[in-house]
């Protein structure tokens, strides 16, 4: 693969009042290759933004150099043809989406910004790829956050550079838009052979979509590799570990461990049983192992965990369940039967079941 960007002995940081403030830790020499999607992860304050801004040329490195296309110290005009950016700076105002995307052709247009036939074609393609062509005439100030983000991406695509750097592109987006955007970036990396680096807090999405992950630890350690490697060698857990947060290796998600677990037994099948279990766990119950059988075909992808895995963190196991929940599947949808010291009663929804459990306590 063709290396688009690499660093040599890079030390990031910033100058404050003539004093150098180094970002913690020493970075290895980094590479971004064509066709690669790299996610830059790290908790707040780990130097993610500083690294991204340094690679983007918005900030000069304190030591070492960023080589793009094999050269360092490109002029702004040369750099603009190699790398385009999507920043977290909010751009608003009376600019229309179309004008914004046309600005992507800035490095290629003449001194007055006149666009050629070829430029117009590239602008059109960029707008269709990102799905902003439907609102091309709207002003930026009237766009939602998601639409704004797509328009900024369209502008970067119109710049038509081999490298694309994005600073937290999924912030402010709702879930479907986040997934959509990540899929689009993945597709762009593969189909147009661009090298894409994005910083994000979306651990789960990054795990699913990145070819490589760069992980910055708050202490300055740096890990990189395939996402799966970083999960298995515990790099994720150590980077994000907090006292009250627990990284679940099975799902690649962070979960909130429940400390005061009361035992409860659950019986039922399929998706309703899985979600009942989630509800009970969220309420602080430890669902007795093996009682709830998830139907393999329906729930295999969403239920890889058994309760034993993090039993260690949720208190002593083995106390006898004082209550039992049975998920009944009827023709009109599931219902829930609660059996405890007060007798046996049926509830039409999880909401009512949880209410009853609360009242009984």
């Amino acid at each position: 693969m063709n290396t688009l960007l690499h660093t040599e002995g890079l030390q990031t940081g910033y100058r404050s009042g003539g004093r150098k403030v180094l970002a913690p830790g020493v970075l290895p020499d980094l590479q971004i290759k064509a066709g690669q999607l790299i996610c830059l992860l790290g908790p707040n304050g780990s130097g993610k933004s500083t690294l991204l801004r340094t690679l983007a040329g918005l900030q000069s490195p304190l030591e070492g150099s960023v080589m793009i296309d094999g050269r360092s110290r490109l002029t702004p005009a040369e750099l603009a043809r190699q790398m385009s950016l999507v920043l977290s700076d909010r751009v608003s105002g009376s600019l229309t989406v179309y004008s914004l995307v046309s600005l992507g052709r800035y490095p290629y247009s003449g001194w007055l910004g006149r666009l050629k036939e070829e430029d117009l074609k590239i602008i059109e393609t960029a707008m269709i790829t990102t799905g902003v062509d439907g609102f091309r005439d709207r002003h930026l100030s009237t766009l939602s956050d998601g639409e704004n983000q797509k328009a900024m991406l369209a502008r970067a695509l119109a710049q038509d550079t081999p490298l694309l750097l994005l600073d937290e592109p999924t912030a402010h987006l709702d879930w479907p838009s986040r997934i959509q955007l990540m899929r689009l970036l993945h597709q762009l990396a593969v189909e147009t052979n661009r090298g894409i680096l994005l910083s994000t807090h979306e651990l789960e999405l990054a795990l699913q979509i990145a070819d490589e992950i760069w992980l910055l630890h708050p202490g300055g350690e740096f890990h990189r590799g395939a996402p799966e490697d970083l999960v298995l060698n515990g790099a994720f857990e150590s980077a994000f570990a907090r006292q009250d947060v627990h990284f679940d290796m099975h799902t690649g998600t962070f979960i909130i461990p429940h400390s005061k677990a009361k035992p409860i037994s659950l019986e039922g099948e399929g998706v309703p049983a899985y979600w009942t279990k989630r509800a009970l766990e969220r309420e602080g119950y430890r669902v007795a192992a093996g009682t709830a059988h998830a139907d393999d075909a329906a729930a295999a992808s969403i239920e890889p965990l058994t309760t034993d895995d993090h039993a260690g963190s949720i208190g002593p196991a083995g106390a006898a369940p004082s209550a039992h929940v049975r998920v009944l599947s009827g023709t009109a949808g599931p219902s829930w039967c609660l059996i405890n010291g007060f007798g046996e009663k049926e509830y039409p929804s999880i909401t009512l079941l949880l209410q009853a459990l609360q009242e009984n306590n």
Partner: protein
Amino acid sequence: MTPSPSGKMRLTGLLFLLLLAFLLDLSVGPVKIPLSDVFHILFSSSSADKTWAFIIDKIRLPKACTAVLAGCALSVGGLQMQTLFRNPLADPAVLGITAGASLGVAAVMLAGGGMATLFAIKELGLAGSWLITVGSCVGAFGVMFFVLLLSGRLQDNVLMLIIGLMLSSITIAITSIWQYFSNPEEVKEYLLWTFGSLQGVTGLQLLILSIVVVIGLTMAFFSSKMLDALLLGENYARSMGLTIARARVLIVVSTSLLAGAITAFCGPIGFVGIAVPHMTRILFNTASHRILIPACCLMGALLLLFCDIVSQLPGSQTGLPINVITSLIGAPMVIGLLLRKKTLNPF
């Protein structure tokens, strides 16, 4: 960002209105000259009333031309400052250039009652007003030099804005000290200058003013692509290949020439620079500077001509000072436009 057909139509409409206002401005005044005679005097030198021809040639035509030049220069200067600083409240005065010009004028007029200057103003007449112009230019360029010197050391445009305001504040303070220690006669003269006037710029002065304004406007037009990029903020602009420092110098020099020249010859005319860019954005509904710059020229010139016409309406010998009229007429217009539009998001 090509001009849309509706944009072109609006520009043509404005141009037509501008011509109309120009002719009307030649016609009104203490001596009313009918429009048909204005045509005669302008396009056929013979067969017209000699007095009227003299009034138009020597007084009203130069004044109308000055109004057009001042309108163009101040509006475009304001537009450039608002975009450079991404601040809807910026105008050509934010860099302290107007204040610098005022200091220069104060130095000439007040000069501690210096005999040399008084002598020059009284004895030389016309040369006296030249002295004021030179003083004003020196003041404006002095401040501009400082701004450019400091801007080379700064990465951030917001810091530039604040430093401009600080320089402005220092300059105004020095002018105030000067006024405080001057005798009332001189202070009154200086105060009259601060009201602004489109009159008295004739002959060689008008030629020089035109040349400087045309240079400034050309530089502004050349910077329109950079201004478009700056709409996205400095980081994006840099990532698109713009050299921020170079763009800043071009924009600051252009604005200084425009605002400095107008202040030198007409006094500090306020309001136009801040209001016309907003009016133009609302009317043309665009952010592209290739349209906004010519449109601002037309709007600014039209507004100043209109204000000059209104200032003649009382029919008195002198007319009201132009600064009073621009605010009295312009401010309600801007408020009206904003109330109709409800939102204004230039940046």
